[in-house]
């Protein structure tokens, strides 16, 4: 392997059970349960997953949940808004730390 992130890893995700079947089974069972229709629809969950995928910058998840969003009935405008929500939170998270900077500046300067 001469690069990080390999597209073929995604369909091979299940191979992670090789080192510990029990934990893999528990994880995938939980994972599949999470995305079932519940108080939130599968479409809403896919939009949340897309936003989180962009936040954690996981290319596997971005591909997977782009398709999932389309298949559960979202369109490009709705998906773009979800990504902007992630962006706003991520950017806001950086910016709100600026208040810590501000306090420190005030402490250290005249």
């Amino acid at each position, binding site marked *: 392997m001469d690069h990080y992130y390999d597209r073929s890893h995604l369909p091979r995700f299940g191979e992670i059970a090789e080192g510990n079947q029990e934990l893999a089974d528990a994880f995938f069972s939980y994972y599949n349960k999470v995305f079932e229709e519940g108080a939130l*629809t*599968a*479409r809403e969950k896919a939009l949340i997953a897309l936003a989180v995928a962009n936040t954690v910058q996981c290319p596997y998840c971005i591909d997977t949940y782009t*398709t999932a969003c389309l*298949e*559960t*009935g979202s*369109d*490009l*405008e709705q998906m773009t808004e979800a990504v902007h929500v992630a962006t706003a939170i991520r950017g806001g998270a950086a910016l709100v730390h600026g208040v810590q900077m501000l306090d420190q500046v005030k402490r250290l300067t005249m």
Partner: protein
Amino acid sequence: MITLDTLPQGPRATSSLSFRAVPLAHPGKQLRVLDAVDTSGGPTNSGQFELDLASCGWPRLKPDRLEIVQINLGKLCNMTCRHCHVDAGPDRVDENMDRTTVEACLRAIDSSGARVVDLTGGAPELNPNFEFLVEECVQRGLRVLDRCNLTILLTRPYSHLPEWFAERGVEVVCSLPHYRKIGTDAQRGDGTYHKSIQALKRLNQAGYGQGDPHRKLVLVANPVGAFLSGNQSSLEAEWKTALARNHNVRFDQLLTLNNLPMSRYLEWLMETNQVKLYLNRLLQAFNPSTIAGLMCRNTLSISWDGYLYDCDFNQQLEMTMDIPRPHVTDFDLGIWQDHAIRTARHCYGCTAGAGSSCGGAIA
């Protein structure tokens, strides 16, 4: 024959394969493109639909009970949608059912025992015999479905149809790929969404979409791209909320259909190098619980020139029913009951995910 200059202008996303005289216009070419794909997935991993059915306990796909006669009145349409499996369009003026064939269809319906007549096209309303056929079926007490592209209802020669349908209890089954604009116009042509919403309002005004079983308004959604359709019941609730909130439009039922890899949808898959990806997506989503409910098991499909098929997709691929005389003038219910249904790789579209049929999801 209907001439082009009598046709109302409608939104266009493309032109027909037939008009462009490209090799893909020929069904044989479409089947060869699918057969050439190196597939993976499905119960036998063979990419052979018959073997996958056999491995699920269906060694021979046979009809169940004939419930629906689906008549394709012709390939003429005021629209030229990007995904059309019929390759319909304003230029398809020659392929339209004549009165003699319509009358033969009525005789076949009478002897079939089917209680549902499903009218499709093209835009079936453009056929000069459309209202005659609907009237005859209504008088027979049959449930009549009109597969409507919506935009046709805004054109002058056909603007009376919402009330005309309402008076006769015709069920209107309308194409709308999404409850929002962006996907609708991408698939069906710029301006389609706006016109579709206007047409839905006209249908609402005529009493459709209010829960009246005699004025039933059904929406049909195909995915706008190389992915499967979503959960029908979940989407129906969301669509109802969204269309009511955004446009004050009501409807009764949503059907979600998969696109079958053929005709203009296949052309788009080829142009975007996604034929293999999509076919394998269908194979990987193969769902054995859809087989019993496949529409080929309860439907007789008739083409504009009277030939008989197992479904409208086989019809467009010119795969006539596997019987000695597959023509409406020779229709015999006993022969239909015993015949073997013809399949090929496009059939994976109907068995994928929750399944797909003209009546929506299966499983």
